[in-house]
């Protein structure tokens, strides 16, 4: 539908060269009509019967480009609707004899239906063959710009992340995350992603908030806990091993929850799913502690094979075990939660081997990890952990069967799509969001938050 561009000649400039002689000249101005992309659309001819012939392809997954053939469709797409198995498909264009539509997600197999006309004068045409729908699993990018580290807020297309580190979901679907950055001036921060926008709640400062490591909500979801490592008196001037935000204050005011001494490096936190007990650790002495809100103090549970263990903690959905992911020892323990004493005890090896890094799928100790990070559970009790230096996500069933869930073991990079072909770069944390049945990954070195969706 390209219109011919027109050139109009205007006698425009009278150029005064010298005061004695006036030299009139003509200037050609190429005048661009600028409307060559404008399409004129028309509805189907009401006096002619619309007919359908065929469509293709006959199978495909979500977002397959579908072309429907026939006659007298008109070119105005507002007169047309396409349904795949009853689900409405977006129409991109139509030239009167072909409609171009996009197969919607979770359509499932079924008939393709074309609806022509505007209410009340509507006619339906159903193609005789069924469309075969393939469900797909998919890795996509939620926010951040690949490879761009930054602290800019904004919509998904502009916001930049530093090094996403830990993720927690609110009941209303808000994604809270930590951007790494230790010390008072390293641009670390607590940020949130909601409705397609990234906002910074708070940056590291001279106050309570200086070195975030992990996030967790309490059971009522009215308090957000944030752990800190207190490790260096040059940079740090806080004694809050755990700080908290409350919903009443819009998660915008930070207060100390548990106070500790210098070089108390809290790295993992878990909230019991029924009792709400809070457990956390100190990397410095290797102990797991239970928080005591009343005293702003803590109670020692046990130590795992000595000091200097960087732990990430998670309870299974029933609250039977506390799973202890030992990041710098490449293995996962679990400890029983004693409902009567409300303490955790009897830690045993669950998967991987103590201080043996590698990449191997298998059962329990036969599997290998390389620096596993903050994990999460799905409702079926499967544990998912980001395997940081293997650049992938591992899945561990309650029976200890370890497999690769997403990413390619040992290959870093950035690629969305099929989970086992997708690529991550040092994933740090995975968090399950029951609201959309998706897993969210803090893809640290890509400076992105990624999403794994199983349709």
């Amino acid at each position: 539908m390209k219109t011919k561009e027109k050139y109009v000649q205007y006698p425009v400039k009278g150029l005064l060269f010298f005061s004695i002689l006036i030299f009139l000249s003509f200037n050609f101005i190429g005048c661009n009509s600028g409307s060559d992309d404008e399409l004129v659309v028309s509805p189907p001819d009401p006096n002619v019967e619309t007919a359908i012939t065929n469509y293709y392809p006959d199978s495909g997954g979500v977002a397959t480009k579908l072309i429907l053939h026939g006659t007298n469709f008109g070119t105005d797409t507002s007169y047309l609707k396409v349904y795949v198995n009853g689900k409405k498909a977006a129409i991109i264009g139509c030239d009167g004899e072909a409609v171009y539509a996009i197969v919607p997600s979770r359509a499932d197999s079924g008939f393709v239906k074309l609806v022509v006309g505007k209410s009340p004068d509507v006619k339906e045409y159903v193609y005789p063959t069924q469309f075969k729908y393939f469900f797909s699993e998919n890795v996509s990018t939620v926010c951040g710009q690949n490879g761009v580290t930054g602290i800019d807020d904004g919509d998904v297309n502009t916001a930049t992340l530093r090094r996403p580190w830990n993720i927690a979901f609110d009941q209303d679907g808000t994604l809270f995350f930590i951007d790494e950055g230790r010390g008072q001036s390293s641009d670390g921060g607590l940020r949130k992603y909601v409705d397609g926008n990234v906002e910074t709640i708070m940056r590291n400062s001279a106050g309570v908030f200086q070195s975030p490591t992990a996030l967790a909500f309490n059971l009522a979801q009215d308090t957000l806990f944030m752990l800190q490592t207190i490790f260096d008196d040059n940079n740090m001037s806080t004694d809050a091993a755990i700080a908290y935000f409350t919903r009443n204050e819009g998660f915008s005011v930070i207060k100390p929850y548990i106070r500790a001494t210098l070089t108390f490096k809290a790295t993992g936190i878990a909230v019991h799913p029924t009792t709400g007990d809070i457990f956390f650790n100190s990397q410095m002495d290797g102990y797991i502690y239970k928080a005591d809100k009343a005293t702003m103090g803590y109670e020692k549970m046990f130590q795992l094979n000595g000091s200097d263990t960087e732990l990430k903690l998670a309870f299974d959905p029933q609250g039977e075990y506390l799973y202890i992911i030992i990041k710098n020892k490449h293995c996962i323990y679990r400890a029983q939660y004693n409902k009567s004493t409300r303490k955790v005890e009897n830690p045993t090896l669950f998967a991987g081997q103590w201080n043996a890094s590698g990449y191997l799928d298998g059962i329990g100790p036969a599997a290998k990890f390389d620096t596993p990070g903050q994990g999460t559970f799905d409702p079926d009790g499967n544990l998912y952990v980001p395997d940081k230096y293997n650049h992938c996500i591992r899945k561990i069933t309650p029976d200890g069967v370890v497999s690769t869930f997403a990413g390619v073991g040992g290959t870093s990079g950035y690629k969305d799509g099929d989970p086992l072909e997708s690529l991550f770069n040092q994933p740090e944390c995975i968090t399950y969001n029951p609201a959309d049945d998706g897993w969210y990954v803090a893809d640290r070195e890509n400076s992105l938050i990624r999403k794994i969706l199983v349709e």
Partner: protein
Amino acid sequence: MKKINHRIISTLLLMFFVISVIAQSQTKTISGKITDEKGEPLIGVAIIVKDQPGLGTTTDIDGRYTIKAGEYDVLVVKYVGYKVVELPVVKGQFNVQLEDENKKLDEVVVSAAGVIQRKATLSGAITTVDVSKLNVPTANLSNALVGNVAGIIGYQSSGEPGENKTEFWVRGISTFGANSKALVLVDGIERSLDELNYEDIESFSVLKDASATAIYGSRGANGVILITTKRGSAGKVNINFKAEYGYNTRSRTPIYTDGITYAEMANEACLTRYQEPIYSDQDIEIIRRNLDPDLFPNVNWQDVILKNGASNYRGTLSLSGGGSTARYYVSGSYYNEGGIYRTTNVNKYSTNVAYSRYNYRSNVDVNVTKTTLLKMGVSGYLVNQTKPGYSSDYIWGSLSNLTPLSVPRMYSNGYIPTYGSNDEMNPEVQLNNTGYKTVWKNKAETNITLEQNLDFVTKGLRFIGTFSFDTENENTINRFKNPELWRAERKRDSDGNLIMTRVASESLMSQSGESDGNRRSYTEAKLDYNTKIGEDHRITGLLMYYQQERVNTVNVTKDVRSSIPFRNIGLSGRATYGYKDRYLFDFNFGYTGSENFEPGERFGFFPAVSGAWVISEEPFVKQNVSWLDMFKIRYSYGEVGNDKLTDKDYEYEKRFPYMSFIDTSSSYNWGEYSSNYMQGYRITTIGSSNLTWETAKKHDIGLDLVLLKNKITFTIDAFTDHRSNIFIQRNLMPYSTGLQDLRPWANIGEMKSHGMDGVASYSDKIGKVNFTLRGNFTYATTDVLNYDEADNALWYQMRKGYRWNQSRGLVALGLFKDQEDIDNSPSQLAYGTYFPGDIKYKDVNGDGIINDDDIVPIGTTTVPSFVYGTGLSLSWKNFDFNILLQGAGMVDFFLSGNSVQPFSGGSVGNILEAMTNPEDRWISREISGTAATENSNAILPRLSYGSSSGSKNNFQQSTFWLRDGRYLRLKNLEFGYNFPRTLVQSLHATNMRLGFIGQNLMVFSPFKWWDPELSSSNGAKYPLSKTFSFNFTINF
């Protein structure tokens, strides 16, 4: 701003005009009649009163005139083609019969040091050019040289206003050292050729051999172009006004194919390499039906950002005249040229390319005493240029890189699209949304010359002293911005929305500036001697001293070398002896100094000798061969030195190569890490002692012939130029010397160039038609004799023994026919896997494998070795006609790049329309269904996509991609009409002419995809313009 400039110029010019027309008092009215030899009245003859500038008249249609003059005044009667007559009023004789000036004046030549010599007595190789043939309707004079001037080789590589200059060399490139460019002298002073106003030029000559250039010493090592500007002559005021309007359109521009052809070929490229096609069946149908303007837009970017053409204007006004004590020539001109980009009107500023220039010149000669002449010249120019934020190479690069399907002009969601950055950026955005640049250049040139006739010492002796001072400045202001740019993935999400990726973030307009400038002063003192002893002995002598200083006034850094003036000094001389104008001998020398060598080694002496035998002056020839007007053979030999290590003025780092320079190096730590360290120093530039002049030994042998009463002229020269001691920075220092990263300079290069150039013309008259047929050619080639390179067992891979800039590559033997052909041929796996239909190479060294050892010299060079021009001028009654065909040969270039090697850049790179014919490429039978399409002689190999198999093999530089760059163009076509004298006189004018000039109207060449003169490997450059220009001239 423009208006103010106009006004200033207007006012100044008006003042000149008014002053010069103030009438003077008189006493007597005189009338008379002027006739020719046959008694026919002559119309338009100028009658002026001597020494009273501005006072004059012309004869009417009956040859009559009336003028008022004092009783003791003298009338001067002047008419073109007739002898000048002086009539003292006291004699009372006012009717005159003018004598035809039938004997053609001796042709004169401006030779070295500005000395005017008769052409007949020259023994060096000098080309002079009829200045009227250099009339080009574009900004730069250099574009007129190739094809008009024998001895000049060059090419024009851009048509962008302000950048459309021709790079040229006198007799080709004769050294691979840094400095191979000719010296351009305007009125004896080193100045630029490009910004010169064509109308101001009086004479143009090219000094080619050593004898002609010797007195310029090292500066003239690569030939000299001498230009003199017009000066006033005594008589009535001459006013010359010329207005020109031209329309520039593109000459050949690459034509790219449309979206559907592109997509189908891309799919073929994948399928034929057993890969998934890029575009699915649905995609192809969507493209064909144009159902998705976001993802499959089918944009012709050339239509979007290019107009059909743009205008240029030029106006020139000059005034000249004066009396016998003082004379003047004053001129002003304005030139304006627009760009062919189609910009939108969204900006308050223009982002199109544009170039405008104001020139002025004033040459005044004053006779201070009877024997003393003072000449003063003031000239200058002011250039204003605008450009879009991105350079034209990026814009044209993106035109070749962005396919019709890459991105739309605008996404339907309002996001601004781009594919990538720089030469992959949306060209419409580059042009309209990235800000703009303004360039402002100015130059002021002043020179003063004192000529003292020393006849009272000895007859024929003159002293000439010149001082000049030039200053120039260039300022660039960049106002750059960048919108936020996006690219959509080539799929939609499940809701049909675009999936956007941000390619570039927004940057608001910011400003930055650059500037450059220098000043140059030049002093010259000359003693010129010219005498004739008896009738037979003509002796001339010249002794000249000069010194020149150039200082950078801007970009002076902390490096002292950037502020030390660049200085030249020289003493030179010439002595000639002619016996009966029959045997001619010249001796020239230059004794020149250079700052680049050690004290004690700074001066070099370079002599040159030449001789000529004018056979036609021999009595027996003169008496017996009446049709032979002149027959002369010439020979010259000379040495010239060159001291320049670089031709770039700003590269002060390369000065004083004999000195070592010390700078900081890595530091040394001790004790606790990073707490204690000592800054290190080392020699970072090693001085090269004993560095000396690069010397050229030049031979020239020539022949001049004039036949049939000046109807036929013919000149031919053959030359050699042997350069030795060419400066090279050594690349191959052994590690054991400790110098391998310091790369000291040395005099080790050696190169020889040789060639021929010639001119011929034939003028005659048939009936009332006068015509001149003329032609010229220049041929030059080179041979590297020694270069800084290791001996190589593969002798053909050395530079030594081949032309400088010799093209090199593999020798292609066509395409592999089938697998059997591959199995029976040497392995080409060095260039990856390959299939039937891929390029088959020749195993040059016979080792059974094809690899880089098989790269050999192929073709010639990218600068033509042979250029020629041929023209015809006709005049009939009031009409004149002129045509110039210009060509170049012995030139070739490699095609390379995404748009000419299909899909070599994957999704980046258009496909030329000329490549889309299926018959031109090898298509496997699996795709076409028939073996007939497996054409092993096709011009394109089996397609490949991105880095798939075959691509590395096929896109090696080889004879397969080598193209002949020869061309012949209709460079100039000129019509003129002189208005009838009666009409002209009624306007009190002396001449009125209407002219048309067409430039670059047609190009004939075996290579059709773009203009081969651009010397571009992919055509992604601002094309040369085709210009239609009309001009109107009026003289008073």
